């Protein structure tokens, strides 16, 4: 059996595109975990709600980009509200409490969406439908745009964390919450802000990914599961590690799909997860201890 070079190249493109979206979902998750030790089980539902808000605003305005920005902002606000009402009162408690609470929030949001929008999947139409030829395939430009936009959003987050005052506040709070307070950093607002940023990033990925799959109430479940794998493999709370892990796992799955049925290819990410937990429990992509 020869090596199918063309398929490998096509799957490389596919893997990177999926990997960038996954990185966008996972970076919100890892940011929230890194700064407040909260494992946010409702992250997938924020992704799903983002897609629905996108559907509604797209229907009202007809403009995909307005829908993307509005969904990001609205879900970020919702994230802040969820944080203030459910997580803030539990600050300093055992992580088990926050897991239960976010899990509860996820159930509420999922069932709300089912009740409000029904079980039938909605469609977000692509902002443009151009295609280019990739070997024997007509490949949609939109997929390339998703990857670039995700990279741009992650890049903007990185610049924000690296250079802005809020970025310094967030990093200082991540390292030592008590000392950050003693330096006058408004830690309660920083935590709320980070939760809102994470929620907004989940929503943005939901809108971006909406055109590729149907929008329905359960769409977040698959993504958040994969995002959790990415966050663990990348090293909990490590942003760069999560991005590397997202691309790494998506590429592996894409390559596996050349030889396996796509539903079996998913197994690859679990194998990576198990091997990571067994042999490098702090994460594959962690170079310096945090």
């Amino acid at each position, binding site marked *: 059996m020869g090596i199918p070079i063309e398929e490998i190249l096509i799957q490389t493109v596919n893997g990177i595109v999926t990997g960038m979206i996954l990185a966008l979902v996972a970076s919100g998750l890892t940011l929230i975990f890194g700064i407040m030790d909260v494992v946010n089980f409702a992250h997938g539902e924020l992704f799903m709600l983002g897609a629905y808000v996108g559907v509604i605003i797209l229907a009202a305005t007809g403009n995909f980009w307005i829908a993307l920005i509005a969904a990001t902002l609205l879900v970020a606000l919702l994230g802040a509200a969820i944080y203030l009402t459910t997580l803030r009162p539990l600050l300093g408690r055992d992580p088990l409490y926050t897991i239960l609470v976010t899990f509860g929030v996820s159930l509420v949001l999922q069932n709300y969406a089912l009740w409000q929008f029904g079980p039938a999947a909605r469609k977000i139409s692509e902002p443009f439908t151009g295609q280019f030829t990739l070997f024997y395939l007509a490949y949609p430009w939109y997929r390339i745009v998703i990857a670039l936009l995700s990279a741009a959003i992650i890049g903007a987050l990185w610049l924000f964390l690296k250079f802005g*005052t809020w970025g*310094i*506040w967030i*990093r*200082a709070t991540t*390292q*030592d919450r*008590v*000392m*950050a*307070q*003693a*330096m*006058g*950093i*408004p*830690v*309660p607002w920083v935590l709320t802000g980070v939760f809102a940023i994470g929620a907004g990033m989940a929503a943005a990925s939901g809108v971006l990914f909406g055109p590729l799959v149907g929008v329905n109430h359960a769409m977040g479940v698959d993504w958040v599961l994969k995002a959790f794998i990415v966050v663990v493999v990348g090293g909990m709370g490590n942003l760069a590690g999560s991005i590397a892990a997202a691309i790494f796992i998506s590429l592996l799955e894409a390559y596996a799909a050349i030889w396996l049925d796509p539903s079996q290819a998913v197994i690859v990410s679990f194998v990576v997860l198990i091997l990571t937990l067994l042999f490098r429990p702090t994460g594959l992509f962690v170079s310096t201890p*945090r």
Partner: protein
Amino acid sequence: MSPGPKTVQPLVKVEDIHTYYGKSHILDGVSLEVGIGEVVGLLGRNGVGKSTTLKAIIGLVHPSQGKVLFEGRPITNLPAHRLARLGIGYVPEDRRIFRLLSVTENLRTGLDRRGVSKARKAELLEKIYGYFPVLAERRNQAGGTLSGGEQQMLAIARAMMLEPKIILLDEPTEGLMPRMVAEIGQIIDMLRRENVAVLLVEQNVPLTLEASQRIYIIEKGVVRYHAMASDLRINDAVIHQYLGV
């Protein structure tokens, strides 16, 4: 508490505070005062509540009873970040610098406040780098890569970025080489010249007697003794009685 000299105009006034850690009573009614620009030493054996007193002033521990006043205003239950902005700097026992932030970023945690102009920020940074040239040399280095003495300087410099009226210094000489200990003494003198009050918790008795104007001695969560530092410098008996040195 023995009768001692009174400050004229207290900047910080602690009135009969009690704190608990679980069931154990850590502070059992501590009262003390620090005047504007005054250096006050807080001595006592390990575990008598010196650090907890500092934490109660900066709002990291909330007393179950008693009051803390800052410039005459009650601040007992305000969160730490508000107190820092009011002008209380805190240099904790283990320094707690942000290890992954660069030296400049560590300083910016205190510097990036509302109401401080760009020019003023640059001026403050220059001034601090003038006092601590070694920090200027290492300004882009991660805080965690500095030596113990440099980290202590960074912790003090970071607190100074708040332009505080008082700095709470918790065991600044712990684990430092003798040369650095002398340097900490000079830094405290510099703070006094800048009219920044200091509440100094130390195990190093000679340094504390030398640097401070007044001394409180704490035992089992209560202030047992209060005197001018100049009186204690010539009274070994008291020091021996309370501190066993």
